[in-house]
């Protein structure tokens, strides 16, 4: 049953939990992109329209006398755009926490496809909230330190929910992985750039 629901900007956060949480109860956290399926398909139509327009422009610019060259350039460019855009049609990302067993990270796309990954509890060293800096922006992300892996594993691969939504999920992950939150804050206090 839904124990809390928070809507903020582009995302909605839903927390499903047992009415009286018993030991071993499954805890599910969803982050859903706001806007209906229509918005997602509308974007797809606009993209198709843009590509057709681009193809027409290219035909006229590159000359009618070489349709093969025009066609190959159009295919190349449109393939490139479709590749970029197709990754972004995410509908929902979920974290299913099964205490003493593990966690399951799921990404559900607009097309109905779901990609999931199960991480056994023994593999999780620590969940961390990290500030990611790119050349154009900076955002919070929730990541996991996993045993035997050098890179951090992102909990939400495509979506960028706000810190307000990430904090309860981080706390739930800390509880299940046995990390003491107070100890986490103390450790952060002593971090010196190195």
């Amino acid at each position, binding site marked *: 049953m839904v124990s809390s629901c928070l809507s903020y*900007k582009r995302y909605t956060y839903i927390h499903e939990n047992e009415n009286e949480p018993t030991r071993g109860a499954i805890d599910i956290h969803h982050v859903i992109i706001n806007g209906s399926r229509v918005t997602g398909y509308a974007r797809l139509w606009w993209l198709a329209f843009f590509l057709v327009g681009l193809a027409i422009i290219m035909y006229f610019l590159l000359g009618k006398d070489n349709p093969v060259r025009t066609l190959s350039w159009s295919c190349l460019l449109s393939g490139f755009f479709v590749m970029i855009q197709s990754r972004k049609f995410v509908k929902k990302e979920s974290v299913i926490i099964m205490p003493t067993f593990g966690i399951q990270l799921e990404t559900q796309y607009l097309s109905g496809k779901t990609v999931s990954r199960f991480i056994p509890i023994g593999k999780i060293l620590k969940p961390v909230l*990290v*500030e*990611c*800096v*790119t*050349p*154009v*922006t*900076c*955002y*919070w992300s929730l990541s996991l330190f996993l045993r035997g892996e050098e890179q951090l594993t992102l909990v939400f691969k495509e979506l960028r929910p*706000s*810190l307000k939504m990430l904090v309860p999920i981080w706390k739930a992950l800390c509880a299940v992985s046995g990390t003491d939150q107070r100890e986490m804050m103390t450790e*952060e*206090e002593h*971090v*010196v*750039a190195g």
Partner: protein
Amino acid sequence: MAEPKLRVLMVSDFFFPNFGGVENHIYYLSQCLLNLGHKVVVMTHAYGNRSGVRYMTGGLKVYYVPWRPFTMQNTFPTVYGTLPIVRTILKRERITVVHGHQAFSTLCHEALMHARTMGYRVVFTDHSLYGFADVGSIHMNKVLQFTLADIDQAICVSHTSKENTVLRSGLAPGKVFMIPNAVDTAMFKPADVRPSSDDVITIVVISRLVYRKGADLLVEVIPEVCRLYPNVRFVVGGDGPKHVRLEEMREKHSLQDRVEMLGAVPHSRVRSVLVTGHIFLNSSLTEAFCIAILEAASCGLLTVSTRVGGVLPDDMVVLAEPDPDDMVRAIEKAISILPSINPEEMHNRMKKLYSWQDVAKRTEIVYDRALKCSNRNLLERLSRFLSCGAWAGKVFCMVMIIDYLLWRLLQLLQPDDDIEEAPDINFCN
């Protein structure tokens, strides 16, 4: 924790892990401002793998933005490319004052331009002296003129530097504050047991062996002093293109046992070299602020120096013209007054005169003055740029108008409310 009084963003291409005067200045100033209860965030470019957010001592938050440096640790100048990330950082951290460092830093100029467009208060500190004649300097000075045309306040590290900055940029002298650099007196302490000056007098020179640092003067001065005073020996630390000339000088006058060449000395070992000497010799032709002589004075050495920016009180230094004969005369005078020097007393005086806490308090006054400046709208600001030159003024205006339009476009694409504020993390000691 109480809400910080000021929230300052320090911007420069030059910060740790790179090592130098500007980097040190930003770090120590930030630490002292944090102690005074302000919030300080530093923005610089990524150094190799060091990219993202890092926290340094005292809770100093550093953003290593992944823009690739292209020459001499400077970010590639894209003019408008850094607008999104600068805007994001200013909003996230709720910054009130932006403080840029070093005229040679492209990131600094771009960030100050964007901050002014968005209506923030900006302060600029110039750390170096630049020429007027060569092509590089002419372009640099034009860029500086652009940045400083619209600044709230500027800081220079010495009167020499203030004159140089005002001449280069055409800035009103009344807007420029002079706040000298300081020295970490806790690190530069005199030796517990001072080396005896009865038998041998040791003169220490630590500098890069380049033309600007007066290495050619050393080649003339050292043999003359060695001839006049048989009990004087020299210790020369540092490396550079003029190293060869000094080696030749040693060979020519057979001074191998009297002139010791140490090669490059890492900063952590500078103190241990200084405390072996009695006199420190600085032959720089020009410096905005010579921290080396402060470090030497803090270690209790008597200094002989050319007239560079940032000079010590009269009884701690003997000044000379950048001429070999005058420098030899100055060294003679220094040797004669050496017995009256008390290193501990010199160190204590340095602690009072040159402390970073004092620099931070004076910088705070500059920030308060900047905050009191009235906010000008776009048209008023454009009129300031027009006075920069016939063609340059119009180009600067175009650049600012495009920056303003890009900022508005960004606000449409990502409204200000969408940028989430980062919480202040408390670091209790």
